[in-house]
């Protein structure tokens, strides 16, 4: 299924804002979330073991509620909008895992010309 109409513009804006570093994503047990005052926006991905198709799912969760999500939907590989939602998932993961900072740090180390990496302990 495609991204629901009332979410499409939000997903596009979220992707752009994430690329600009304007969204704080947090990883929680394989799910990436943006914590907002009233609810959390969550995104996760996987491969359905029954259908063998990859999917990206989105949910809105009220953190004060222990049960259930306020809303949820998914887009499967091959469906319309899969590329957009997968791009958002990828950017969220990069941001939550601080990959750009880690890669910058490695880049700077390599530019310094000195030996990098710890010596193996015997």
């Amino acid at each position, binding site marked *: 299924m495609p991204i629901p109409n009332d979410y499409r513009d939000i997903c596009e804006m979220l992707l752009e804002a994430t690329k600009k570093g304007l969204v704080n994503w947090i990883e929680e047990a394989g799910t990436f979330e943006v914590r907002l005052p009233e609810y959390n926006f969550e995104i996760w991905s*996987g491969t359905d073991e029954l259908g063998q198709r990859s999917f990206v*799912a989105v949910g809105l969760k009220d953190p004060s509620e222990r049960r259930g999500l306020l809303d949820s*939907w998914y887009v499967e590989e091959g469906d319309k909008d899969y590329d957009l939602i997968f791009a958002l998932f990828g950017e969220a993961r990069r941001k939550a895992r601080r990959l750009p900072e880690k890669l910058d740090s490695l880049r700077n180390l390599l530019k310094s010309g000195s030996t990098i990496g710890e010596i193996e302990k015997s």
Partner: protein
Amino acid sequence: MVQLWRTKKAAVAAASSAADTVRRLSSVVAVSSIEQICSRSRDLIHLIRAKNLTSSATAAFELREALAKFCKSQVALQLLNGDVWAKFLKTIAQVHESLECAASIKKIDAGNRERLLQEVSNLHSEMSMLSTIAGEKAGETNAYSK
């Protein structure tokens, strides 16, 4: 004077006996609570294996609730320290959240399902061991205790 001393001694013995009874009773309550947690974790393992996502999410919530209630009791803190209980609680909270997400879209990642099974199985083993330890403390363990 002798009578007074005897009365005091009897009172001290009665207090000691009462405290011992309370301790034993607490251990019995602990065994019962841990057995209940074990039963819930066993059910959850079966449901995750059966790929029944909605029931798994409900069972995970019930297991989380049972664990949350028990881990704050005095008797739980006598068995394990608070940090260990907090770790168990965090694990089952994550399992529950993950199953709720999967149930909401009726899909679960194959690798995630394996990970959840592993985590609940580990928790079940820990609780089974604790049940035996608590049973021994209560002096009522036997070969058929789960």
